[in-house]
């Protein structure tokens, strides 16, 4: 299939007329049937809902996190900073052994550095990190892009259920 330039026999002026026809019928189509043909939306008034798996922001579940530091190690951009301490937890069954448990002191993700690759969410062995398709958290100062523990916990509410799969 060659792009035979000779096979495109077109009258001298017709090329431009075809172009004009395309723009004019797009204009009338967009004016009279905007629902079907208008491609843009008015952003703050009308908002598009992102897909379920969209990687907008990372949400943290503090109870699940055991400060194993795997996510901080695997992150290519070194943008997760974690500090924790050991703490006693009363045993499940009365008289059981006192269990020592790691609890988080600090879990910051610097979204100014993060490249949304998703390695941390994938590598976390304790279901502590989730993706949420939220995207409206831009800041005026770059420093505010450092989300602390509680803010990441706040995103947990916006994590969507997993989409059903193709049969």
């Amino acid at each position, binding site marked *: *299939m*060659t*792009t*035979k*330039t000779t096979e*495109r026999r*077109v009258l*001298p*002026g*017709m*090329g*431009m007329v*075809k*172009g004009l*026809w*395309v*723009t004019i019928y*797009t204009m009338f189509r967009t004016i009279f049937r905007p629902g079907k043909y208008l*491609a843009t939306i008015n952003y703050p008034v009308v908002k598009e809902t*992102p*897909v*379920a*798996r*969209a*990687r907008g922001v990372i949400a943290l579940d503090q109870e*699940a996190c055991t400060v194993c530091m795997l996510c901080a190690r*695997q992150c*290519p951009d070194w943008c997760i900073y974690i500090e924790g301490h050991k703490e006693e937890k009363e045993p499940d069954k009365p008289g059981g052994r006192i269990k020592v448990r790691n609890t988080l002191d600090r879990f910051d993700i610097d979204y100014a550095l993060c*490249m*949304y*690759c*998703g*390695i941390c*969410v*994938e*590598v*976390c*062995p*304790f*279901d*502590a*990190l*989730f*993706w949420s398709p939220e995207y409206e958290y831009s800041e005026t100062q770059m420093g505010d892009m450092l989300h602390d523990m509680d803010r990441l916990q706040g995103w947990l509410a916006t994590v969507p259920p*997993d*989409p*059903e*799969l*193709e049969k």
Partner: protein
Amino acid sequence: MVLDQDLVRHLSEASVSVELETPEMTLNIGPQHPSTHGVLRLVARVDGERAFDVQPVIGYMHRGYEKISEVRTYPQVTTLVNRIDWVSGYANEVPFIVAAEKLLGVEVPERAQFIRLILTEMARISSHLIFMASYPLELGAATPLFFALRERERVLDLLEGVTGGRFHPNFNRIGGVKPAYGSGSATRKVIQDLPAGFFAETRVAMDKVLYAVDELDALVADNEIIVARTKGVGILPPDVAASFGVSGPNLRASGVKFDLRKVEDYLPYHLFDFEIPVGENGDCWDRWHVRLLEIRQSVRIVQQAIDGIPSGPLQAKVPKIIKVPLGETYVRAENPKGEMGYYLVSNGNQGPYRLKIRTASFSNISILPWILEGVLIPDIIAIMGSLDFVLGDVDR
């Protein structure tokens, strides 16, 4: 006051015979310029409108990927690698992962290969649609941009639906495709297969892409002004193209019927029938038209792949911490911009020992000094636009 005749004659001849000596001017096109596709700088010695010595200066966007990849593990390099040609993010990951799988000797399951193929062809469609949008804009026509980008959004939404990322999907894993949401007890069971309704949406999107391609064809292909601006401009003979390493649509536009998808086995292209559009005389118009026809071929491939996709696991049996055994291999793939290859040398650790990234745009624009010799400035923009390069691809 009677003018003496020979003075008049002398003056008239003088003006005719003396060649107007205008000093030539050095014009910097870029690195901050509306149509250099990124931060490319052309230092052009210009006489009036004609440029006769154009030297590209690159490196403004050199991120040193080959050095960084020596300290990264394989999953981390995948996130690095899909940022080289960000217009077709997914297509960059595939050859790197196939190279690692070759060294490991891992057989990728059938379904994962099909998903990879569908997403690579979608990345090709989105890359060619960006070209369909930006090239007429460089010639002055603003409307095709919106037709092309409107359909590109549909394709990117599909990519985002499956992988979660529009430009940088990071969806490839050694041995197949990303199997599960996470590795926790609950998230391990959440399979990252194609979301429900993906096939239906893809069929609708592919029809819309075909419709938009017809609209672009009507709007741009036979337009007398575009034909006048691009036909016979920037002719690239096949032998010069080969010696510079120009590949992909630019090479096929010069009449060379060579497509890596038919030759290499990095993805199961042999299962589908598609044609390779070839240009005739290698000028800007042919380079534009070959890409337009390639979109139609990619749509055909995607439609066939959707109908024939088998079910099965998403990833082969692969240990959690992957150590690739000693060895070196070169895998090359047909990226939308041309031949993209990875020369991977591994030393048995978690990351590559040395990774040479052969990118298409680097060789495609190394031809600029040759092709822009004695060319008018509007043609510099037309020829550069027709080569369809991206600076991330050039500078790595």
